[in-house]
């Protein structure tokens, strides 16, 4: 028992504050891309279109030739529409909150069912990390649940492989209305590095997505920020 307490005292456990301090992320962290000279009106018209939904945030993706486009440490990237991820030089309309009725229905809790549907396991690892003592999404009332019947929505990750399409649709249909859908990661949004594979079918149109969270995989802060925006609780 004493050992337990001694060990507890050693561990400095404090959940990360939200919004998090982007400057605390390492300098090499690859978040939202931005063009250095975006303020120049002359330049604005020729800014490159960067599709965050296709990006896997690989270091080679941006080069100095793209008007000096660089990855910034800004981890906030979730949007309400697929189109909003098509940025001009990285400028982004971040996700707006759900309508008042839906927010009133949810109250202070959001229960989600995760469906990994043809992924590498990376996005699920970050979704799991949201529950740990550092990101601690439970403090915001967000929780993953076992049964779709207990859920307010589904989180989809992966390319939606041919072998998972049916299971995804069944899970979605088992969630009571009204429900929300969150697409996490490049694979769910665009197929990611697997785009074009005959096994990738994508999220079917019968499953309308409310929140798009880009990344490969998205940093837990990116996911948490997106969820809080959707709930109208991001500041």
């Amino acid at each position, binding site marked *: 028992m004493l050992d337990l307490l001694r060990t507890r005292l050693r561990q400095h456990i404090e959940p990360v504050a939200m919004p998090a301090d982007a400057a605390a992320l*390492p300098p090499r962290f690859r978040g939202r891309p931005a063009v250095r000279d975006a303020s120049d009106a002359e330049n604005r018209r020729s800014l490159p279109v960067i599709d965050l939904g296709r990006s896997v945030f690989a270091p080679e993706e941006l080069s100095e030739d793209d008007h000096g486009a660089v990855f910034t440490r800004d981890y906030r990237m979730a949007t309400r529409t697929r189109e909003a991820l098509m940025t001009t030089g990285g400028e982004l309309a971040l996700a707006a909150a759900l309508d008042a009725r839906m927010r009133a229905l949810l109250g202070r809790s959001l229960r989600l069912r995760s469906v990994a549907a043809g992924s*590498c396991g990376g996005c699920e690892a*970050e979704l799991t990390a949201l*529950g740990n003592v550092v990101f601690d999404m439970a403090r915001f009332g967000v929780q993953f649940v076992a049964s779709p019947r207990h859920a307010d929505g589904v989180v989809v990750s992966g390319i939606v492989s041919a072998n998972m399409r*049916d299971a995804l649709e069944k899970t979605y249909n088992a969630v009571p209305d009204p429900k929300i859908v969150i697409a996490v990661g490049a694979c769910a949004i665009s197929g990611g590095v697997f785009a074009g594979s005959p096994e990738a079918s994508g999220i079917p149109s019968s499953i309308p997505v409310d929140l798009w969270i880009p990344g490969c995989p998205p940093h837990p802060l990116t996911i948490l920020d997106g969820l809080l925006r959707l709930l109208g609780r991001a500041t």
Partner: protein
Amino acid sequence: MTQRSFLEISNRRGTRLADIPALQVEEFATQLEARTRDGWRIVALFGTPEARARLTLVGVVARDDAGELAVASSVVGQRYPSISTRCRQAMRFEREIAEQCAARPQGPVSLKPLRRHPPDHAPVEWSITFRDREAYSFDEVSGEEVHEVAVGPVHAGVIEPGHFRFQAHGEEVLALEIVLGYQHRGVERLLEGADRNRAELVAESIAGDSVIGHASAACGAIEALARSRKTPRAQAIRGIALELERLANHIGDLGALSGDVAFHPASAYLAKLRGECLNLLMTISGNRYGRGLIRPGGVAFDIPDEMASEIVRRVERLREDVTPVLRLLFDATSVQSRFEAVGVVTQDEVIANGYVGPVARSCEVARDVRHDFAYGVYRFAQIPVARAWAGDVQARALVRRLEIQRSIEFVIEQVSALPRGAVRVGCGALQPSELVVAMEEGWRGEITHIVMTDAEGRVRRHKVVDPSFHNWPALAGAMAGNVISDFPLCNKSFNLSYAGHDL
């Protein structure tokens, strides 16, 4: 009499296709069988389509204690006498060949699909009959009070999809059948595509928790075929990244095991310390899983002096933090009573079925690519092979605890004394008509990438064998005789990859 036999090869050294012995398929099977009885095991056995309706089967075998690797091939038609009727260890490989290449091995063998997808590596002339993806017949146990429990592909937690079918009597599991393929993305075809830059990114996405392992094996194969020689500094940084990946997963899994037996303090602390390992990888590469770091010819990011001292400081801190938590976990009798004698794998099973990684090492089978087929930095900085003997959940946890300690020491040592030099060299055109086997000791065990080039030096076959491909049957075997309620604990002690298996 000069009977042609397997050709000795080396880890990460190209071999001319013309030098690989081509055996009659019966002889190929007989020699595979003789070798698996004689201390060798099958590393890979796969098909690659040829012109004129032929299929080349390539077999790679290893004898770990002697550090020997050997290869042979056999050219067959669509119907050929099955290999696994002679050589039991070839069973899963032959199921894969039947599924990927539309081959029809003849004999009393089970050819149940492993991933349930249409053949994508069949010779163009062969007729292909692909049934429904859902078509799958389960083994059943009949008898009074025997019942079936079906779980998945969508599970209770946030995990990858797979289907588990238990045949149970009361709580006792009589048999477990594991059906995978839900994560199948067509990885090998994409690796074989023309775009090499994209292939690098695909290699990083084979299994999201083994980014460094798979990317290093894939690059190792490509570098060998390009005769590109990495600098010692690049090799050291790859080793550091691989051990950080091992640390993140071992620490995270021990935390998850604690959670499964409701030992919450260790579960909470270890989850946080896993995060610190990922953050170290992010400091180096900009991504928590090390994406973007491993590139052909070396690494894309250097570790400057200032960062090196920061890493040493943080890993020393990690050692201080993790040691008392592990002591807490392994000293708790309530934990031990849940870990011991659950999910036992025997040494005989390891040897007969060719299991790898911590699963093998927890049965006193000291297989470790870093030691047996040393490559890169591991030729100079040897890590002792961690072992345990009981083969149960406790033994697998113990192996991971030892590996945590050793990886921490390795990282501190390597980061403190990085060799000088560039971190990336050129990696140009590939040698034509060659084959290379690149093995890497990922945290789950042996990751193998085999690349074959055509006469123009293009990649014509890129075979991936994740350690989970070898080890999934170990979990099924270990469950028999246990109770269903111990399944989550047992499963987590293996923590096999669905994505790595399904490709």
